[in-house]
């Protein structure tokens, strides 16, 4: 048997796992691994500018391709910089394997230079974390990591690699399969439960499908659309489930939750059977929990048994993979006669559409216009959002279908996610349009990745909705905290009066100047202040094939995301318009 170093085995393992892109940032305790990767042809080794940007990029790559995203960083600060990204990905069930360098095993526990217990730090935010302590266990541990990351409810696995393990010689064998006795993801669908669920559905007068991210993760969009069409049952989605069926589909109602549409929230509040697939009934979608779907029998399909009957007690629990469950349902479901109910939902949709009022904006340029321009311009795109108002507007107005996918940090809500995620998405989908919808706050959290986007020649289109505020918090301060704009103004300077809540006076200049910042990185920068310039900006960005284009949209400083369910309210108790708020 051939003897190779741990580092060489690491590279071999990546190839066996068909890893084509590796997001990697070197350092002292990972130097042997990078040495083994030097000149590697089969793996595209990408050097982002910060480990947080790195892991979000791996996350965007994984979400947009369905493959496992792979990270390699050094010990200590390299590893701790991954923490936010690990929690972000794990929360949204994104398969990642994160390799961290570690001090040699004989120094672990000695407070060595750049030593942290990354396995201990990440234990509660990942699916599995392990330090490899013996060279002979390296191959099996890496195999296990990939299997655990991609199967069942996908998630993040951290593999900590001490330097002596990287350097030690051992077998070059890499297993094809591995047995993990404590890990048995649900592979079958319980037919008895499926029959019970269908029995309920078939007798329903006001049924609704509630679809979460599980359907998108399982890539069951086509089958889900067929199931909706076969039964005629309207579909409501969570933010993570958006796109499960095309948003233009006549059976699509909208997102539910605290910024959901009136029709979606009303449909769930008034339904008699709530057929939910791949959602964990997070507090963002339920509103006041006692009144959530109060009159409904609830069916819940989820791959994670722990998600079932945790927040909402359900009548028919089914632990299963979304795709397998939907395919099983497809074979047995039947059309329902529920035209009165669908008519009612369609009336809600018509009478209470989501809309950003243009009159509130001094420039007339609303986030809705910008997002609708994205919808019209790009039929084939991956759209990554940041977190905050930009994300909520995107989830309200983006048109999604089989060719348009949205990436968003739904569970953890990580600002700074969008731009690096788009870098990963572009690397995984070089022929697709990749668009970022960000805010001025979140954009600055990982702005350093502009260098990576430039050097890897990634023509990403970065739309920054600039209102000069941390807008989502500002909106809450406006609506529920008496307009006390505490620490949310991004145009604040020392020379400003304290306690300012008047954004429309002569405020100091915004910093940075995003257009000049983009140019300083070698990217293209465009500023849009008028509605009529939106289209031209996108056309110009599309012509820029070699570098990213930053398009800064100057929007009304106090534009709000509407409607909203105030904290503590039930879903059918929404504020629909922002009149009465603001000046």
């Amino acid at each position, binding site marked *: 048997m051939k003897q190779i170093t741990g580092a060489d085995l690491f590279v071999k393992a990546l190839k066996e796992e068909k890893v084509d892109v590796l997001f990697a940032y070197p350092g002292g305790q990972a130097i042997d691994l990078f040495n083994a990767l030097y000149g590697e042809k089969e793996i595209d080794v990408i050097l982002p500018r910060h480990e947080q940007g790195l892991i979000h990029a791996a996350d965007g790559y994984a979400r947009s391709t369905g493959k496992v995203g792979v990270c390699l960083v050094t010990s200590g600060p390299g590893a701790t910089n991954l923490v936010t990204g690990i929690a972000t990905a794990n929360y949204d069930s994104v398969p990642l394997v994160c390799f961290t360098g570690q001090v040699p095993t004989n120094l672990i526990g000695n407070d060595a230079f750049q030593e942290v217990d990354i*396995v201990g730090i990440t234990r509660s935010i990942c699916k599995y974390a392990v330090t490899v302590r013996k060279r002979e266990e390296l191959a099996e541990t890496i195999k296990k990591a990939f299997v655990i990351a991609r199967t069942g409810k996908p998630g993040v696995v951290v593999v900590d690699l001490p330097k002596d393990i990287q350097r030690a010689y051992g077998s070059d064998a890499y297993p094809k399969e591995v047995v993990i006795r*404590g890990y048995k993801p649900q592979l079958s669908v319980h037919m008895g439960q499926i029959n019970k669920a269908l029995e309920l559905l078939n007798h329903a007068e006001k049924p609704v499908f509630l679809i979460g991210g599980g359907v998108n993760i399982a890539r069951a969009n086509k089958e889900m659309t067929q199931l909706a069409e076969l039964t005629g049952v309207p579909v409501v989605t969570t933010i993570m489930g958006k796109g499960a069926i095309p948003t233009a589909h006549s059976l699509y109602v909208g997102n539910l939750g605290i910024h959901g549409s009136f029709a979606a929230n009303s449909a769930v509040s008034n339904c008699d059977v709530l057929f939910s697939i791949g959602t964990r009934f997070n507090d963002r979608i339920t509103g006041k929990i006692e009144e959530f779907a109060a009159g409904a029998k609830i069916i819940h399909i989820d791959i994670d048994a722990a998600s079932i009957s945790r927040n909402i007690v359900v009548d028919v629990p089914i632990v299963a993979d979304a795709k397998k469950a939907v395919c099983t349902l497809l074979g047995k479901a039947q059309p329902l006669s529920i035209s009165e109910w669908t008519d009612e939902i369609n009336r809600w949709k018509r009478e209470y559409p989501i809309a950003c009022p243009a009159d509130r904006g001094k420039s007339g340029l609303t986030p809705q216009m910008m997002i609708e321009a994205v919808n019209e311009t790009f039929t084939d795109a991956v759209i990554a959002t940041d977190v905050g108002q930009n994300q909520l507007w995107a989830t309200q107005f983006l048109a999604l279908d089989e060719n348009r996918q949205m990436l968003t940090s739904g569970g953890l809500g990580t600002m700074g996610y969008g731009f690096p995620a788009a870098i990963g998405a572009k690397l995984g989908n070089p022929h697709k349009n990749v668009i970022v919808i960000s805010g001025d706050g979140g954009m600055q959290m990982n702005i350093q990745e502009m260098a990576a986007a430039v050097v890897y020649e990634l023509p990403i289109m970065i739309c920054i909705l600039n209102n000069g505020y941390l807008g989502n918090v500002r909106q809450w301060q406006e609506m529920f905290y008496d307009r006390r704009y505490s620490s949310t103004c991004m145009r604040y300077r020392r020379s400003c009066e304290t306690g300012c809540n008047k954004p429309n006076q002569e405020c100091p200049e915004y910093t940075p100047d995003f257009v000049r910042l983009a140019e300083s990185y070698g990217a293209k920068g465009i500023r849009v202040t008028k509605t009529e310039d939106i289209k031209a900006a996108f056309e110009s960005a599309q012509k820029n094939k070699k570098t990213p284009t930053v398009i800064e949209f100057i929007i009304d400083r106090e534009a709000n995301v509407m409607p909203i369910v105030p904290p503590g309210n039930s879903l059918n108790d929404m504020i629909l318009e922002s009149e009465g708020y603001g000046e």
Partner: protein
Amino acid sequence: MKKRWICLFVENEIGVLARIAGLFSAKSYNLDSLTVGITEDSTISRMTISLTSDDKTFEQVKKQLNRSVEVIRLVDYTDTPIHMKEILFVKVNGCSDADINELFRISKVFNAAIIDYDGATVLLECTQTENRNNDLISLLNRKFINRIEIVRGGSVAVEAVCILER
């Protein structure tokens, strides 16, 4: 709220105890006692966990434990016939002759043993159920107030061989 018992078979690896204990703290589950020891198979450790919770929380505890990669098997002992024992040491200080006589009487009634003794300090060992040990401690606390030192080992449990009811 009800007292629950879980028997957990886990991988005998570094960090598994931290993972299981960390799960309880991360999810705010109330852990009464946790013991762990290696089994006849040296790659497997066996834990006995007791907690007090309502039905809904307990269901979550079991599901969360089950989804941990390191957990090989979980058995709910709450309503099954089991043998359960907890080791308890009690050191009683400043004993008079009368105290010592009383301690000998108590040890006889509670089936405890006096295993060490130097004239003024007595060491009792008691291997009983958690509840029985609680009773002994409460009695000693009353009689020898501020003079006792307690070490409890946490419970270990195993399924009964021929008992049919708990």
